[in-house]
């Protein structure tokens, strides 16, 4: 029943995506073009990377609200390490990613060692990390990166935006991990029944620690891509991105209570949101109308799959 209903939600969502794509391409002939679609991939990479890690986190029954702040902190550190400390840019970016990953690790420690519920812990670090970004940057932007750095965020590899390759690679690796490895199994088990998982000798704490660290890492990588895409660093980068990522994840069928969810679902959810944003804009709908529609789609999609699931178990 469980597996079947999972497939059902994703199928439903994929169908919806197809319908949306068809409808939108009738609305504007510039929508369904390779260029436009690839370009959308470029725009959704940062949220995508974060949403992939968030899928794991939510599947364990947790949540990470601090990702936007980690993104901002990493972006600032990239700039500061490079310009103020004088490190070569690749080293600076790596060091910043390490710092962002560490921020995720700190979340994990607060959650696993001190047993603070994830929502509260990351609500607190959401404020803390953003504050650190602001304090470290002293509200200054860092600009003027060397041209080669923009390969990551603004250029193509084999005709496809560079960062889209990264997103694609991350999605494939993540879905394999979640579906076929002991680690993925542990994620679902912890999300379904943490106590029983502990009693079965699964390393619950280590897994969670690793997940929050990974979430920090994903946000940090997204930060560097973001900096490269927009050519500058600001301490307010990534504000509110956590809600966008969570929206994609829950739209993709991951249960907010843990225990179920897939990467495929998340990616479809992400594509659906991006297609709506882009397609509606091309069709002449303004931004405020678009966000209203996305809100409605989120509620209706989950409602529809709830109804399907319930009618399914009755027969």
């Amino acid at each position, binding site marked *: 029943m469980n597996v079947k209903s999972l497939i059902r939600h994703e199928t439903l969502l994929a169908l919806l995506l197809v319908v949306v794509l068809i409808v939108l391409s009738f609305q*504007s002939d*510039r*929508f369904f073009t390779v*260029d*436009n679609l690839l*370009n959308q991939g470029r*725009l959704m990479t*940062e949220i995508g990377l974060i949403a992939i890690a968030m899928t794991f986190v939510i599947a364990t029954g947790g949540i990470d609200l601090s990702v936007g702040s980690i993104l901002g902190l990493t972006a600032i550190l990239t700039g500061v390490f490079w310009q103020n400390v004088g490190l070569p840019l690749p080293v600076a970016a790596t060091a910043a990613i390490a710092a962002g990953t560490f921020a995720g690790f700190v979340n994990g420690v607060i959650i696993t060692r001190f047993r603070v519920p994830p929502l509260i812990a990351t609500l607190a670090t959401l404020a803390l990390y953003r504050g650190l970004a*602001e304090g470290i*940057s*002293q*509200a*200054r*932007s860092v*600009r003027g990166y060397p041209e080669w750095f*923009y390969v990551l965020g*603004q250029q193509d590899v084999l005709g496809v935006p560079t960062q889209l390759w990264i997103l694609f690679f991350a999605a494939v690796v993540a879905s394999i991990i979640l579906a076929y490895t002991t680690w993925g199994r542990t994620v679902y088990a912890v999300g379904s029944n943490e106590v029983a998982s502990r009693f079965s000798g699964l390393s619950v704490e280590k897994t969670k620690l690793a997940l929050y660290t990974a979430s920090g890492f994903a946000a940090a990588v997204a930060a560097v891509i*973001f900096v490269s*895409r*927009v*050519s*500058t660093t*600001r*301490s*307010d*980068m*990534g*504000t*509110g*991105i956590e809600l966008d990522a969570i929206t994609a994840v829950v739209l993709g069928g991951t249960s907010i209570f843990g225990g179920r969810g897939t990467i495929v679902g998340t990616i479809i959810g992400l594509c659906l949101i991006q297609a709506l*944003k*882009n397609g509606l*804009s*091309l069709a*002449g709908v*303004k*931004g*405020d109308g678009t*966000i209203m529609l996305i809100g409605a789609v989120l509620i209706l999609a989950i409602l529809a799959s709830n109804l399907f699931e319930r009618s399914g178990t009755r027969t």
Partner: protein
Amino acid sequence: QSVWTGGDDLPTNPLACDATPATAAAKPYDGGQPTNAPDRKGKTIKVVDVPKLIGIGYFNATSKGIADAAKEMGSMDAKTDGPSKANIDDQVTLIDNYITSGVDGILFAANDPVAIAPVLKKALAAGINVVGYDANSTPDARQWFVNQAEFNGIAKAMVDSMAAEIGDEGAFAIVTSTFTTPNQARWIAEMAAYQAKCHPKMKWLETVEAQEDNILSFNQSNTLINKYGDELKGIFGMTSVATPAAADAVTQAKKCGSVAVVGLATPNAMKPYVGAGCVKSVVLWNPVDLGYAAAYVLRATADGTLASGATSVKAGKLGDLSVINGSEILLGAPTVFNKDNIGNFDF
């Protein structure tokens, strides 16, 4: 108080203490050029206006100006669409979508001068005419920028008004949106430089952040009043959100007359305070005019009548506007709203 850098490390350039106008060194054109732009001369063009954010009075006014100009010209099909938060990412995404949808011209007010540059360059590469207003991008990412008033000019007007109200030895504090907001940051930097140069005995107490949140601005202003007591003589509001909130704080603290409020704001929001006499004057260019001018500049750019080397441009009822700094068009002097004229404006 830490040194203000204005969010970037650009040098400040305070004006002379008296009314001597700045001698602008002539600069060659440094804007960008659209690639293979079709000949749009005289044709109706489709234009999108992407302000920093929608849903605030200020950008409603610029949007109105653009719409007015478009109607007047009859050959511009203009629409405003912007992010609901002053967020670089959403703004970039929106512009990107409009490039794809195939507009002829883009008007923008940048949330970040550098972050917006790649997507604007992309627009230029797609043959789209790009003109900025209110908040600039790097020059090569757009063709022209309509400058409402130079940073140092605003700084001078603000500091001089404050000095006139609280005297040359008064102490003041500033309420701004965030330290990273580019325009506000530069204004504050220029104000610091100008004050140090021309009113060295004024005392700069501190600067606080209040987002774009009017209740927070109100609370922050109150906290400043409470903290400094009688020492505080004036508050600068750096945004159209902060200034009315600061005025309200002063009103409710019954400090009208003993704490001056000087700031940038739209007249509608300030009417109650100016009317009650708690705020003497509000400095702001007319944002309707700003949008109006921007639309005319874009039209001229598309027609090819405004090109590299021009020294002025015709902007409908505003007359001739002059080119400064290579690729900027100066709107003119800021408007000062006071008890007598504030009723005449509606934005």
